[in-house]
């Protein structure tokens, strides 16, 4: 275990930002801290960097107590959400800052600093832009300067706060893949904060999902997506349709039809809420076993066909099916929606 975080708690006045969070990162791992805003993910990142002091708990890095060191001695690279580039310095000067700030005994000679800066500029694909000021660079370029600046000090851990948050969707996708490549090349233990579940699932080796300052679940993207331990995890990682059901003898009865329950089985029989992904329905025209509904609209643009329906209860839901199954469905048709499987948790954390 490279980085071990144990029982970290932090309060801002009476507001608990972190409530006893424990997690770990292996050497070279790419870890995502995922959660809605206010879940404490950025606070945790700042605690690791030393920019915030926790009220209690410990952080060990390779057996050494990290909390005992001030920020500037931790040797942890930090990329800020809005980059925090030094605005009066050129990109090259920004990148060289950490090297020039080293004590005289460990500071590399000026020529070595220059060649290191050139090397980093080419690593982040900004050759020839070293003389530009931050104001003269695009958002994506600024972000890469910030990354090069953090990498210049050869950090032991790299921390990224919402690395793609301030970029538009297209640049974001490109940078995401590029960052993953960079991580594979450098092998640096990296932790990044995001509120975007797609980003976390696509990039990270493991994802820590936080909620209200506590760790909700931690695991690989597959584990989180396919074996969510709570309704919150299931709902945060994708679209979710909630339907009332009755649990009876290990299956859920939804609108009179029995549906198998996947995942943890609720211990009690009785009324409960079934959670279903929009793509886990069979849709048939006409009557049958399941929820009867009227089709309001069929949306055919996109990877799946999306069927907007109104249930007999009056609730509107949107389900997704393959395009070839959508050909025979038209607006105003009566259809039957049959969930293939549902998940039921004893107490749903989101009402």
């Amino acid at each position, binding site marked *: 275990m490279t980085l071990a975080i144990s029982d970290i708690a932090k309060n801002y006045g009476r507001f608990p930002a972190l409530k006893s969070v424990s997690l770990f990162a292996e050497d070279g791992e790419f870890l995502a801290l995922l959660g809605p805003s206010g879940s404490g993910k950025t606070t945790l990142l700042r605690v690791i960097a*030393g920019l915030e002091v926790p009220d209690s708990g410990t952080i060990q890095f390779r057996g050494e107590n990290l909390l005992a060191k001030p920020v500037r001695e931790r040797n*942890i690279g930090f990329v800020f959400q*809005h980059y925090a580039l030094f*605005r009066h310095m050129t990109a090259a000067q920004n990148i060289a800052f950490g090297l020039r700030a080293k004590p005289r005994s460990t500071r590399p000679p000026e020529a070595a600093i220059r060649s290191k800066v050139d090397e980093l500029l080419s690593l982040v694909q900004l050759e020839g832009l070293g003389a530009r000021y931050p104001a003269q660079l695009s958002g994506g370029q600024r972000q890469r300067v910030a990354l090069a600046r953090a990498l210049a*000090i050869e950090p032991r851990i790299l921390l990224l706060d919402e690395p793609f948050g301030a970029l538009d969707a297209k640049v974001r996708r490109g940078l995401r893949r590029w960052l993953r490549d960079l991580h594979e090349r450098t092998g640096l233990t990296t932790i990044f904060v995001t509120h975007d579940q797609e980003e976390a699932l696509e990039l990270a080796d493991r994802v820590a999902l936080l909620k209200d300052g506590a760790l909700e679940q931690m695991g690989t993207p597959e584990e989180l997506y396919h074996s969510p331990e709570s309704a919150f995890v299931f709902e945060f990682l994708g679209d979710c349709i909630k339907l009332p059901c009755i649990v009876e003898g290990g299956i859920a009865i939804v609108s009179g039809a029995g549906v198998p329950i996947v995942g943890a089985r609720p211990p009690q029989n009785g009324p409960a809420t079934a959670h279903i992904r929009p793509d886990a329905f069979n849709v048939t025209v006409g009557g049958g076993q399941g929820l009867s509904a009227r089709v309001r609209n069929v949306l055919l643009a996109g990877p799946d066909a999306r069927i907007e329906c109104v249930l007999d209860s009056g609730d509107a839901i949107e389900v997704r099916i393959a395009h070839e199954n959508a050909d025979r469905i038209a607006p105003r048709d009566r259809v039957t929606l049959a969930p293939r499987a549902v998940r039921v948790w004893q107490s749903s954390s989101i009402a």
Partner: protein
Amino acid sequence: MKQNQARRDPPWLVAALIAVGVAYLAILLLLPLVTVFAEALRRGFSYYLGAIREHDALAAMRLTLLVAAIAVPLNTVFGLAAAWTVTKFDFFGKSALVTLIDIPFSISPVISGLVYVLLYGANGWFGPLLDKLGIQVIFNVTGIVLATTLVTLPFVARELIPLMQAQGSDEEAAAATLGAGLWRTLFFVTLPNVKWALMYGVLLCTARSMGEFGAVAVVSGHIRGQTATMPLHVEILYNEYAYVAAFAVASLLALFALVTLAVKTLLEARFGDELAAQRWR
């Protein structure tokens, strides 16, 4: 740029507004300024030179420059420290500190002077103690420096605090994660980011410290050639009906102010692009 007809104001309104503005400035600002120079030069240039080369006038100039040379650096260091403290840290009593900094702006300078008389004067709280130690504050240069420093205290801090608050402390945090210590962060990150605001603050502080009258008048004692700063010297000459000499010294003070203004304008023109770049975020 071609203007939209609908958005253009009627010409008479534009003319009237400009006329009001110009007249207001002319009557309140320009006319007195012109009068100062006209009065000063009424008896010719050689008389003017004689008046400002007179022994007591030179002493007043030296004293004024000395006071500014002490008060301005003091308030620059204090202003920086206060702005840094207020904007980069959270602590109990922060808003009280900000309010305290503003006090010299809101109270009459005469009160600032009287406070020092009350504290350090012969019959003041610390008067007897200081007397025993052989230190004289009131009716002395020390008192003038103290009063001037108090009155000009907010200028640098007031220029810096809003800017540093807007800039936040992310760059300082970034410097810390990159291994920079306090001094390196201060000289390579914080100061370059606020250098223009700092310069404005210092210029305003200088102008005011040379022109301060009220507070200085109370503590100085008006001893000609010893504790009379330029504004006090002007008053002394005026009260002695030496109008031309009074205006001559006054014109020098006005000139100081004009030079300060010119330097500020020049800096803005010369480094306008850099200023704009700094406001990028």
